[in-house]
C-alpha cells in the first residue's frame, strides 16, 4: 500500500463514525462506560479461560450489525495490531507444557490454552475499542471523557491528536511524494533520507505547534478548552447501558456456554 492509500484508510475509520444508526445515536458517555465495563469484564477472566469468553463475541457482532460497520474492515485493523498480542503469548506453549486435557488423542497443554485465551481477549478488547471509535465521533468521546471526570489536559491532548493527525499525515504525505518523485531505483529510499525526513517533519510540527498556540492565545486561551455541548441521556441510552451491564454480569458469573450446551443436549438428546 502506498502512503496515500494508508492515509485514506485512517480517514475511513473516522468517516464511519459519521453514521446515523441506532448505535451511533447513543449518548457517547453511555458508550464509553459500556466499553469500559466490557473491557474490565473481559480482562477479569483467569488466564486459561476460553469457553466463558466466547459469549462475549455477541457484543461486537451486535454492534457491527446494528451500527452498519463493515466487519472485514474492523477485522483487518485487528490483524494489523495483532503482532503485539502474538509476541506476548507466543512463548506460553513452550513455557507451560502441563497437559490439561486430551482432545481426539491430542494432548492440550496449559500453555496453548493461555495463548488462545490471550488472543481471544485481545480480539475482544481491541475490537471493542475500534467499534467505539467507529460508532462514536471522536470529539463526542472526548466530551464524554471530560464529563466523566477525566483531567482537562488529557482531553485537550486527545482533541489535538484528532485534529492534527490528518494535518500531520498530509504533511508527511506531501514530503513522501516529493521524495518519491525524485528517487530512482533504490537511491534515496534508504534509512539516511528517511531519518532526515522525519527530522524535518518534527521541526515543522514544532513550528506549527507554536503558530497554533499563538492562535489559541489570541482567542483568549487560558489552559482549558471550554466546551459547549449538551448531552441528554435518553431512555434508550439507559436501556442500552442496563442491558449491557446485565448481559456482561450474566456472562461473567453464569456459565452461559455450558447452559447453551445443556439446553442443546436437552432438546436433542
Amino acid at each position, binding site marked *: 500500500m502506498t502512503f496515500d492509500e494508508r492515509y485514506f484508510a485512517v480517514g475511513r475509520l473516522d468517516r464511519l463514525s459519521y453514521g446515523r444508526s441506532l448505535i451511533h445515536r447513543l449518548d457517547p458517555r453511555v458508550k464509553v462506560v459500556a466499553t469500559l465495563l466490557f473491557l474490565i469484564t473481559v480482562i477479569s477472566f483467569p488466564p486459561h479461560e476460553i469457553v466463558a469468553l466466547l459469549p462475549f463475541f455477541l457484543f461486537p457482532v451486535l454492534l457491527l450489525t446494528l451500527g452498519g460497520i463493515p466487519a472485514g474492515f474492523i477485522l483487518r485493523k485487528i490483524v494489523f495490531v495483532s503482532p503485539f498480542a502474538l509476541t506476548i503469548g507466543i512463548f506460553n506453549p513452550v513455557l507451560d507444557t502441563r497437559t490439561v486435557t486430551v482432545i481426539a488423542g491430542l494432548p492440550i497443554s496449559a500453555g496453548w490454552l493461555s495463548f488462545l485465551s490471550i488472543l481471544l481477549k485481545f480480539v475482544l478488547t481491541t475490537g471493542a475499542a475500534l467499534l467505539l471509535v467507529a460508532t462514536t465521533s471522536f470529539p463526542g468521546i472526548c466530551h464524554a471523557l471530560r464529563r466523566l471526570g477525566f483531567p482537562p489536559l488529557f482531553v485537550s491532548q486527545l482533541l489535538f491528536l484528532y485534529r492534527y493527525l490528518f494535518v500531520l499525515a498530509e504533511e508527511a504525505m506531501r514530503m513522501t511524494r516529493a521524495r518519491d518523485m525524485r528517487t530512482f531505483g533504490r537511491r534515496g529510499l534508504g534509512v539516511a533520507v528517511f531519518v532526515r525526513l522525519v527530522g524535518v517533519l518534527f521541526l515543522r510540527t514544532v513550528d506549527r505547534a507554536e503558530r497554533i498556540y*499563538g492562535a489559541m492565545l489570541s*482567542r483568549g486561551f487560558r489552559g482549558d478548552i471550554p466546551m459547549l455541548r449538551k448531552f441528554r441521556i435518553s431512555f434508550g441510552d439507559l436501556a442500552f447501558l442496563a442491558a449491557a451491564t446485565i448481559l456482561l454480569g450474566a456472562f461473567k458469573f453464569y456459565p452461559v456456554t455450558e447452559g447453551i450446551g445443556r439446553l442443546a443436549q436437552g432438546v436433542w438428546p
Partner: protein
Amino acid sequence: MSHHIIDFADVHFRYPDGTEALRGIRFRITHGESVGIVGANGAGKSTLLQHLNGCLLPTQGTVTIGDLALTARTRREIHKKVGIVFQNPDDQLFMPTVFDDVAFGPLNLGLDEARVRERVDTALAMVNGLSLRDKPPHHLSAGQKSAVAIASVMAMEPDILAMDEPAATLDPRSRRLLISLLKGFTHSKIIASHDLDLILDVCRRCIVIGEGRVVADGPSEEILTKRELLEANNLELPLSLQKR
C-alpha cells in the same frame, strides 16, 4: 468609539537567530481606516502582523493599541481588541468541529451559552458558512477553511481586524466573496498581502515595507500606481492597472 488607534513607534524586532525583521517601523492607523501592507517576501509583513496582538513583542520601540501599550502584561486585553486571521487556516482552526472552533473565543471571553450560540451563528452567517457548522475542519476545502477562520475571529467581535495573505489559497470566486465581505466591515482593517488588486479594492491606504522599514505610506491609488516604487520592492502594478 474613537480610540481604535494603532501606533507603531520605532518598532524593532530581532528573531532569536539574529535576523533583524523590523528595523524601526513607524506608523499610526486611526479608527475605521483600512490599510494594506505590501512588500517583498521577507520584508517583515508577517512579523509586523504578529506584533499587533502580542504574539511577538518588540525588542525596541513601542506598539500602542487603543490606549494600551503592548507588553507581556497587557497582551490579554489586546487579544480582545485585535483579531488576527493567520495565513494558514489549519493553524487557526484547532478544534474538532467548526462550531466548537468558532465558539472557542467567545467561550473564553466568558459569555453565557445563549450569547455564544448567537455569536457563532452571526459570525458563520457573515461568511456564508452556516452549513459547515458541524463539520470537522479537516474535511473542508481551502476556501471553506479560510471562511471559517475569519468567522472564528469575527465571533470575538474585535475592534481591529488584521489578516495575513487572506486570499492566497482562494479560487477567484471565493476571493471575490472575501473582498465584498471585507468591504462590508466597518472595523479598522489591516491586510498584508501580495494581492495588490485586493488591496486596491479594499484598502484606502497602503504601506510599503522593505527590509524592515516603512518605504512608502499613502493613499492606495497613489502608491499602487508608482511603477518604480513597486518594482523596487519586488512588486508590480496591480493587474487591473496594467495595460495589455
